[in-house]
């Protein structure tokens, strides 16, 4: 079980992956936006995207859980 967390305060601009997807290391899960910059949040290991904890338009704080990969 791997947890993917937000590195900074940001707005969730786009959710790219869907729960249940098979993901590879480096696949984009969601795209955050902070300070006029888009920041892709990537899977850091291969697995199944068990849960997405954010939706488009959400504000995440640094350290917030974005996705769980099993």
């Amino acid at each position, binding site marked *: 079980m791997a947890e993917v967390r937000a*590195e*900074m*305060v940001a707005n969730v601009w786009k959710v790219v992956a869907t729960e249940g997807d098979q993901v590879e290391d480096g696949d984009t899960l969601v795209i955050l936006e*902070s*300070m*006029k*910059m888009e920041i892709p949040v990537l899977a850091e290991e291969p697995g199944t995207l068990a849960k997405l904890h954010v939706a488009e338009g959400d504000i995440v704080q640094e350290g917030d859980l974005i996705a769980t990969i099993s």
Partner: protein
Amino acid sequence: MLESVLVANRGEIARRIIATARRLGIRSVAVYSEADADLPFVREADQAVLIGPPPPAQSYLHSAAVLAAAHQSGARAVHPGYGFLSENADFARRVLAEGLIWVGPPPDAIGQMGDKINARNLMQRAGVPVAMGSTDPVTDASQALAEAERIGYPVMVKAAAGGGGIGMSAATGPEELQTAFETARTRAERFFGSPAILLERFLERARHVEVQIMGGSDGQVVALGERDCSVQRRHQKVAEETPSPGVSPQLRGALLAAAVRAGETVGYRGAGTVEFLLDVRKQEFVFLEMNTRLQVEHPVTELVTGIDLVEQQFLVASGEPVSFDPARTAPDGHALEFRVYAEDPVRFLPSPGAITEWEEPAGPGIRVDAGYEAGNTVTPFYDPLLAKLCVHGPTRDEALGRAREAVAAFRVAGPKTNLPLHADLLASEEFISGDYDTSVVAGLRS
């Protein structure tokens, strides 16, 4: 002179415009979003009007809310600063239609230069050199491939409707072009509301040099020297200086003359900037774009000319002559600007957060234009610019020495900042030599 002005912007530039308004006895009205209520510019204006929630579309880009604030406060003029509504020709027209003074160029000049393809075509006809590139908007991938073949790789792919480096990327061959085209098209659609794309021949060793112009109310366009903006990350400026160490007197003459011609071609009034790319090897330049507004890095020009550019904007907007002698604008000494961003200094990722400590450097030849102070919170809604640290000295070497001390003395705790990048830049042989190009930051971080 104007009686009152609404400043349709935020942060350091709103504060800087308000400072000149105060000095000239012009009543200032700030507008602010819920995220910015505690920032210095709100407090320093004579009056402040809350215009909406944090997202720009609901506040600083919400033209109806800005205009309502102008009417409510009785402001007689609108200064747009940079970014947000500053290059929106329709907004400028609405300001004028509602009986207010627009502190900016004629809306038609904004429109003509805002479409980057139209601007290139216009400049070419006026005899200003442009790079090989599109004369019509590129709208699909196969057309982009054909254009790239015609122009020759490498090419730069960018949005036709916007600037600021957003969505811009270079392609060295057809495969990279596909990606670059898709990136540019999505960004163009999202940020500028138009998917039109422009392709241009990419210069590999280039300096980014721009010329400050000022169009008088009598129609005379004057060039106030150049600024070198080659220190960039993600095609966005990080530090600037004037005069450019890469421009010979002869080349300077040609650049300034081309910028004046560009301004005259569109009947320019007020402050504007004509950007050029300079081919380092060939010592040739091409027109890049024109920014029809006050530029972020305008303070370096102010430091070497002694001219307050915002004051000149106010004068021209009220139909009065500029307050300087156009024949005596030669630069005095050397000035640099370092943009202090809320971002980590290695990967350049945004770093919003609460500012727990803020101590600005001070002393002879040091100017800090800051948007924040201790106790403020940097939010994720706007660009990462916290402050502009500017230094002025009799020579470039002396200015660099002051810059090193000032960077070391600038203390910010809370958000990460790029001050360590500036310290590295000021220690790099390439930058110190003056012989650098737009790849200098990448070189520091490789």
